[in-house]
């Protein structure tokens, strides 16, 4: 396969992925992730909107991913693997959420 052809396939693949991928919003307010559970597909982005004036994280319990979320800003994380993932805030571990990722 020529490099040109590989590049073409890669661009088609990335186009098709970006066309289907969605951004799903989760809000953090007063140390609560809302909605507490969201459904996503592989390739979707979870955007965490932090309304608290405190720094938070969204960290997968199994260690697969982590997003640092500055105070009053937002953080993003792309779902790369299918399955259910529990997550929490490393700084305030009483904050918990769950993302169910479909293939």
């Amino acid at each position, binding site marked *: 396969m020529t490099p040109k052809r590989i590049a073409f396939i890669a661009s088609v693949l990335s186009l098709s992925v970006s066309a289907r991928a969605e951004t799903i919003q989760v809000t953090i307010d007063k*140390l609560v992730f809302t909605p507490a559970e969201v459904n996503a597909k592989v390739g979707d982005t979870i955007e965490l909107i932090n309304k608290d004036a*405190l720094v938070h994280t969204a960290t997968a319990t199994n260690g697969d991913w982590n997003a640092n979320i500055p105070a009053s800003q937002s953080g993003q994380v792309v779902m790369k693997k299918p399955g259910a993932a529990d997550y929490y805030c490393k700084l305030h571990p*009483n904050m918990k959420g769950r993302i169910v990722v479909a293939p």
Partner: protein
Amino acid sequence: MEVPMIVKLSAGLATLCLLTAPVFAQSAAKPTDPQIAHIAYTAGQLDIDAAKQALEKSKNKKVRDFAQDMVRDHTEVNKQALALVGKLKVKPEDNDTSRALTKEAAAKRDELAKLNGAAFDKAYVAHEVAYHTTVNGALESTLIPSASNGELKGLLQTGLKVFQGHQQHAEHVAADLK
């Protein structure tokens, strides 16, 4: 039959006691909003001071990160508390609980000052677990139920969630140090 004066008097006194005793007991046990604001602010400031001591003494990354989190979070919560008392025109009032907390913190600071390295790290983090447990207990059992202003109560409730988070975070750090 005429009731002797002494009986009338003692009956009167008994009634008075019945009326005043619960009020007194309540005022002794139940802090006022200005006192609650002072206790909550003091508790936060003491934890900032403890974290600053840890930042001076500790070389452990997890302990230092935790201490920095404490400085940042408690500074923010206290900033919000000051803004709220300013808005409500509540003047925080010093009280026995605030004084006891301050005295206890000074003793702990002296005790920790004598320790170094891993011994300091363990003692600091263990104290952070214990301190947040105590403050959270006071918030839940006394301060939040006693707060009469709704906004103050709301800030204390959010504060409780933040501090419960700190308690768990401290427990995680303590487990890592073992």
